[in-house]
């Protein structure tokens, strides 16, 4: 079964994907590097390395990429990576922003898929170009200007998904720390809905609020958090896709945990 949530499906489980592949009813996107993809991948998957997408992720370019992957408005899309779902999330979010409504994440990573002994090959599928429409969804995007205004509101929660030490060192004022590692369970990229809800509920992250996620630079870790929120039935989420890197470049205010040498507790 898929993880059906209030707002729809967030992840696709392994067995469902396998049967969808057999039915040829799905477009699978592998977002790993080209070299890794060429070695082996989930059968029928096309390759869209995240770096390729990020080199120009304007809607016009994304539309071209989507068309070239044979995706139209009705094509179900499943995205996977080998980086705990963060890269796949960023790609899925980009498709969602473009207006594609049927995109989900594979519930696990490619390494785990392989460790289960599931099928993979190195064949590169032939893709027929399709025509996708462009109906942008600005309501899932947060820009720095938007964020600066929004975070003064009481009903907005800002979540920082970087690791704890980076958060302590510097973060956007008012943000709360929810490291990306917290979102996964043992071999799934996202915890179960019940576990996720309990975690978020303890933190006061509840349904009524608008929630904005950010991470270090390109919205990958925070992309995963965006889907984690949705999986817990919190649909009102936005991704600050340019994240902390842009925030710092714009020299906007930051905050830090003062008077403690926490870095020296790390054994890294």
């Amino acid at each position: 079964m898929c993880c059906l949530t209030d707002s729809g499906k967030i992840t696709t489980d392994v067995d469902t994907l396998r049967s969808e592949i057999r039915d040829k009813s799905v477009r699978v996107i592998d977002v790993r590097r080209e070299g890794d993809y060429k070695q082996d991948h989930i059968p029928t998957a096309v390759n869209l390395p995240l770096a390729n997408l990020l080199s120009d992720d304007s809607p016009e370019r994304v539309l071209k990429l989507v068309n070239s992957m044979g995706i139209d408005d009705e094509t179900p899309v499943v995205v996977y990576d080998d980086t705990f779902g963060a890269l796949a999330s960023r790609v899925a979010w980009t498709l969602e922003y473009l207006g594609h409504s049927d995109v989900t994440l594979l519930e696990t990573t490619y390494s785990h898929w392989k460790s289960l002994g599931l099928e993979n090959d190195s064949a590169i599928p032939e893709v027929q170009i399709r025509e996708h429409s462009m109906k942008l969804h600005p309501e899932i995007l947060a820009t720095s200007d938007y964020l600066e205004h929004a975070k003064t509101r009481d009903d907005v929660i800002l979540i920082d998904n970087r690791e704890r030490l980076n958060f302590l060192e510097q973060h956007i004022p008012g943000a709360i720390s929810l490291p990306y590692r917290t979102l996964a369970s043992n071999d799934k990229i996202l915890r179960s809905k019940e576990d996720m809800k309990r975690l978020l509920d303890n933190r006061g992250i509840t349904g009524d609020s608008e929630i904005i996620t950010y991470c270090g630079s390109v919205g990958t870790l925070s992309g995963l958090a965006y889907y984690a929120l949705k999986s817990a039935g919190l649909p009102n989420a936005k991704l600050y896709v340019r994240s902390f890197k842009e925030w710092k470049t714009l020299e906007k205010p930051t905050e830090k945990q003062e008077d403690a040498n926490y870095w020296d507790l790390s054994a890294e």
Partner: protein
Amino acid sequence: MSKIYIQTKRNFIVLTISDLKQTVPDSAKHKINWSRIEEADDFAKTVKLFRQGKYDEDSFRRYRLQHGAYGTRMTGDYAMVRIKLPAGEIYPDQIEKISQLSEQYSIGSAHFSTRENIQLHWVILEDVSEIFRGLSEVGLTSREACGNSVRNVMCSPLSGVCPAEEFDSTPYALATARFFLRNPMSQNLPRKFKFNFTCCEKHGMVRMVDVGLIPQIRDIDGTSQRGFKIFLGGGLGNRSFVGHQLEDFTPEEDLLYTSIAVMRIFDRLGDRKNLARNRMRYLVNDMGWDKFQNLVFKERAVVRATQSVITQLEVDKTPNVIKRPIKISNEDGGETIPDGYARWLKTNTVKQTQEDYRSVFLTLEAGDITASQLHGLSDIIRNFSSEGMARSGFEQNLALRYVHEDDLPRLYSKLIKIGLAKSGALTMTAPIGCSGTTSCNLALTNSHRLAKEIQRKFLELKLDEDEDLGDSSIKISGCPNSCAQHGIATLGFFGGGGRVGKDMYANYQMSIGGRSDGDTMLGQTILRVPAKRIITVILKVIEIFKANKKSGDTLKSWIHRVVNGNEDSEIKSIADIKKILEPIVIPPTIEEDPDFYLDYGSDTSYHTKTGKGECAA
């Protein structure tokens, strides 16, 4: 292809040999479940009530500490979760879980303490209950790891393998921990209460704790009887005291009665008002040992007479299964032994009483270990320890025991791969550093980083290979409260602030000659040493020792003579050493040496800054 049958709890699984190659050896599982899952829910609820203002600050702090969540420097938003490892035992699945929890809720590293706890720092208060939930999956708890309760019951990491011990006290330590955990009588003591079991005089810390126990066997009319030498009323802190031996021999049947009697006296007479002097050692000191000792005998008679016969420690004497893990074939064929092996073998391993086996100590930096190292370590334990678990030690470290001599080179190369093969674990080059200003409210200096700096420098100088320094120790606390146990170090330091005009710098009080073995004594203060001069000062002390030592001397034995006035070389007293060190500790002006005024790990000017401590909350 041959088949092999493996019995699991419910049925037989058939594996072929090719499958087996990929599996790790059967993992030993923890025998005792210390956790209670309902405490996770309760904690989550209580935090919510507290945040809503429905729980007052003091009651909440007591509750939080009772559950093992300690406050964090300068903030109410974070906690440190102190996970107890009773008798120091830790199993591979538990290590894996802690690795995961440290990445999810902490800083991606965990910290081994001096009392066989593992600490997760900088945890968001609202996430503490999630950690409890994770711990309960592997049978661990942080319950009563802080607060006024019976703290983690320690046992020597060498108990059971130490050539000098009379019997293994581990089962008694575990039984004691089980008896007092969540026991109503240990929920509201005047202050914390600590038990240390050991193997022998040399490897324990029995005179520096509320109750210290050395196993002993006595022959009575040809039958041998198990029992303990019990020491009471010792402890390190703002004021430290050496414990007193209760009687020649306490038979094992009296172990629990004695423990209960001592706790009842402490509970009744301990000082509940004066937070600065409410450990039991103050009670013993104020009352005088003879009187206290008498009181214990009387109270024990009462306890013996009034406790039901059922009140006995459940000592599980079933020996652990010792089974050398299956060697994974053809993986390491013809591999050469990596460089540094001999040095590591000498400074990190000890021979066990069991032939062909050694205990291997890991060199950590001030007790810190990363999540990925923990992850790697769990597999290494499965593959190399014939008892299938590890034991944490008294010195912010961890021991793998029952490693077969033949497996040591292979173990060493595995440890290199995860960055845990540094030498010097059992020498002076592995200094103890409390958490200091990295997380503790009371800290005045970054003792934690200083310990790491000393270790890096001394390993670079290969001081771990110098046998003269092997049995000495360096311990550094970030304030006078002795968490790093500086009072029993050969070279001990505790942090404070120094001042030149209006410029402040981190400054440590140095003491020498402390020890915790059969000749236990507290170090004698010698002089204050600025943080940035400590490495120079230690090297100078070593130089003075080398110039004056007699053959067969170690730094420890030489200093012992000096502090006791028995040295007849040029150096006759602490004052003579002080005279030589004094020029080194003279502060330069801030213009001459700006770095001098920065504490380790800090690039802003030094100020002493503390919050409220919670040791006595």
